[in-house]
């Protein structure tokens, strides 16, 4: 698990999954379809990612295929970091 993923995982656990055992949130756990993130929570997550990694996400980045799992979030963050 890369640093980007670890940071995002901690944020999701603290913010949206209080009390959950960390091992239950895996890189492939569905974040949106499972009800962990609703649309408002997704926006909070986007704001967190933008601030934490100092990147700007465009409207088309904020889609379920990019934010649906920790794995896909990590891919998105790395892509954005490499474009900086």
């Amino acid at each position, binding site marked *: 698990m890369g640093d980007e993923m670890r940071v995002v995982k901690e944020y999701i656990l603290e913010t*949206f*999954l*209080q*009390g*959950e*055992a960390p091992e*239950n*949130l895996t890189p492939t*756990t*569905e974040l949106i*379809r*499972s*009800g*962990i993130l*609703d*649309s*408002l929570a997704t*926006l909070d997550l*986007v*704001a967190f990612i933008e601030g934490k990694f100092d990147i700007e996400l*465009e*409207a088309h980045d*904020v889609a379920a295929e990019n934010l649906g799992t920790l794995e896909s979030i990590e891919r998105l963050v790395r892509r954005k970091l490499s474009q900086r």
Partner: protein
Amino acid sequence: MTRALGLVESLTQSCRRHAERVAVRDPETHTTITYGELAETSDRLRDRLVHVGVRPGDRVGLHLRKSVDSIIAILGVLKTGAAYVPVDPEAPASRAAFILDDCSVRVVITDADLAPRLDGALAEFGVAPAILRLPDADTSTRIRAALVAAQEADAAPVTADASPDVDDLAYILYTSGSTGRPKGVRLTHRAAASFIGWCRDEFSPSRDDVFSSHAPLHFDLSIHDVFVPLVGGARLVVIGEDLGRDPLRLAEAIAAESISVWYSTPSILNLLALYGRLDRHDHSALRLVLFAGEVFPIPQLRRLKEHWPHPRYYNLYGPTETNVCTYFEIPETIPADRTEPFPIGRMCPPLRGRVVDGEGGPVERGREGELLVSGPGVMDGYWNLPEQDARAFSRDAEGERWYRTGDLVVEDEQSNYVFHGRRDRMVKRHGYRIELGEIEAGLASHPAVREVAVVAVAGPDHGVRIKACLAVEGDSRPSIIALKQFSVERLPRYMVPDTFEFLEALPRTSTDKIDYQSLVADG
């Protein structure tokens, strides 16, 4: 005067008068229809619905995402004299099926890709209404394609518009029910006309206005969004579910479509101010910003007004049972020392209000009491729930019927009502109305759950967070992720609890009732 005409007549007259003008537009699919096309297509839908057996007084379910077609469908149903019943296409299909079965719809109009799920859920209820599927397609109106195909298979003769009585139902809007079952609010043509008439008197819409339609069709906000523009020849910009929750694209659309009248919950406006990058767009066409459904915290409202200083802002209040019943115009400048949310305001004529104590007696101005509402905009009652009707209404000495809102208010010195809270277990979350009992009923069906109590606790910025407290069987404590998944399969997404807490047993009061107070106090 529009108010003297029935809803169907007002709409058809407007379609005739404005035939060449744009009636409805969907910025995502770039679908645009004129009033002439709206009239023609909704006429053909009426014919088809009548052909398959819809009669005045029936119900027709709309299981549709927001689209130009969903607006045509509303008109088509009303022209048959039936009531339309919009169900949330994003909620679990079992909830939609419950609603459609509850009010025994004759026909359901659904998006084709949603149909298989719905068919399965309806089969579980043992009901099989006729289904009109709108094919998957991105561009032109899909309803037309569905009607053409149906016409080729089995021609429907041309019929005439029904002319419903003011006491006939125009629509049934289902809201959260405390027993775990959604309850249908029956609203008549009289109620619709009364509300639309008030909107026209108060906001003086012109045919050059461009109205947003952001709220889902099963929300009472949609009554304003759909009918106020269409009876007046203005343009309705229908905002789909995905666009509606994406502040970046939403801000673009408000500018690109030159929207002049915006109506939504404060939550959405707050998201626009926070994440919409409003400074990058020209929103000078906006002249009116209406919000309803929940309290707008002052710091958030102030931030929005900094981005958008030019429109007039109104706080609209009212449960689905009355639609908007009070209104308050936000002052141009919010005093720097103001922290309390603005009042919900004064009654919308011709509705009348009064504040009563626990025994139904009047309370003095300045004292807290329950707000009662009377007048033509008030619902007829709930669908098939006579006991809830009996609790919802009280009669005064003159025999007048008053709807008990359950909202505790105080009338201030300027004769504005100020919202103080609820007298029951209903909460508002992001503008959604939630009976906590409905969430409890959903969670209670989990095999590991022995006891459940759901409470609302204070969240950031005057918001609420939903906390579910569970006592589980033995050591079989489910994971939080699994519980969220279980919830989202049974409840609308906005009812999924934010947090879960596990207890040995739920705390009880001395009379052996669940001690909700102590659960709330634990935060």
